[in-house]
């Protein structure tokens, strides 16, 4: 969290945030399933100013063969930020931050994929951030989940993620870039919505135990809204195919 400019007010007198949202309001989310022809499953998400493409390849045989796991599938997630996705040009390639995000997102997704049904296989998940504006790991995980369902991979749930945090002393949902940079705390949360299992929980900044509980509850509420959008996106793509079956 960097130093806040003196005159910057993140929440105004009416309780509105810098982009005009209420504290418990999400940024507009748009999800499209299956934009990529070559991938086995794909998804494009626009979450506020975030623009992210997720692609899933596989399941396919693990190569080299000595890396195969005889009892379960290996999930490889790769989170990558395009060099043009941030204001200042980012040096391309994996860095400390994107390696960490690849790991936590991959582990969250592995938890809901029925990996034991696909022994000796690999599932590759690529998350490409084209435009970043805070909360990319949440949006990336949400998109990757839709791409996995689009690829027809057996899974226990469609995971979904959303962040909450603290800005100008108030707990708010889904931080935008200014709030992330000059706020007090940012907490991304990923859940499996059916059983409300927590798949990912990270935090940057400081929260009191009461604020933490409040933020977690708020993030889970946000997740449930996005979860509905995920399902709508999948239904929109496949409802035509059911028409075919009814013929």
């Amino acid at each position, binding site marked *: 969290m960097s130093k806040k400019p003196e005159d910057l007010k993140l929440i105004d007198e009416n309780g509105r945030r810098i982009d005009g949202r209420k504290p418990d309001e999400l940024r507009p989310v748009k999800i499209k399933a299956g934009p990529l022809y070559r991938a086995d499953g794909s998804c494009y998400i626009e979450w506020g100013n975030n623009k992210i493409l997720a692609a899933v390849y596989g399941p396919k*045989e693990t190569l080299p063969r000595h890396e195969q796991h005889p009892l379960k599938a290996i999930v490889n997630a790769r989170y990558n930020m395009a060099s043009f996705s941030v204001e200042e040009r980012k040096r391309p390639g994996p860095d400390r931050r994107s390696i960490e995000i690849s790991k936590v997102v991959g582990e969250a997704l592995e938890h809901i994929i029925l990996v034991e049904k696909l*022994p000796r296989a690999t599932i590759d998940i690529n998350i490409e951030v084209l435009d970043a504006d805070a909360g990319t790991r949440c949006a990336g995980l949400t998109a990757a989940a839709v791409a996995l*369902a689009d*690829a027809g991979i057996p899974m226990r749930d*469609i995971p979904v993620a959303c962040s909450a945090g603290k800005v100008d002393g108030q707990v708010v949902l889904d931080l935008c870039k200014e709030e992330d940079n000059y706020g007090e705390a940012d907490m991304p949360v990923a859940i499996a919505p059916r059983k409300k299992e927590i798949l990912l929980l990270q935090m940057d900044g400081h929260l009191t135990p009461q604020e933490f509980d409040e933020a977690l509850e708020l993030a889970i509420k946000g997740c449930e809204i996005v979860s509905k959008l995920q399902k709508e996106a999948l239904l929109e793509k*496949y*409802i035509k195919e*059911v028409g*075919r079956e009814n013929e």
Partner: protein
Amino acid sequence: MQRKGKVTRELVLPSQLLGDTKKYKAGVGTFVEDGKIYAERLGILNIKDNVITVTPLRGKYEPKAGDVVVGIVIEVGAAVWMVDINAIYPAFLHINEVPWFVEVGNTSKFLNYGDVILAKVKSAGEPDKVQITLKDRGLHKINGGTLIETEPTKVPRIIGKNASMITALKRYTNCRIFVGRNGRIWADGTPEGIQKIERAIRLIEREAHTYGLTERVLALLKGE
């Protein structure tokens, strides 16, 4: 794909609740948790004789015993060939399963890397131990022609009801065609004919869900 009988058709998403284990049995494409049946993948719900199954709409080819598939040899071993059949794992073709007398170590004389075969799935118990065979009528190594790849889930549409679509393709193009269950189609004939077939297949792929598809494919075949 099941096409017979009275079954309900409904699109389901992974983790969608489908029923109770007290009333139904969990079949393919579902999983059970705390006595409830959920869909494990995106597909179409089938309930038949109290068994709930989900027919997938997307995903790799799932080998079933008896399916005729078009495979590509990707590895030549001493006593076995590994064949890519568009499934998750390559299939095994043992030297006992070919119509020729092959001595151990002499395998590459008969089938080599990149060779295409029309084979039949012999057994598909575990997904990573699929056996295929060439020992049956009409199965052979393929020479010449063109391979066209589509999605395995679109194959029933390409064949059509009572093979109507595939018969039409054959009649109007004068080509020889094999449709593998794994979504690979082999065609041989005049270059124009093959081009026509490819265009027709892309049309079927794109408009698989629409009504009057056969008529439009016929129009495409006749119009040129």
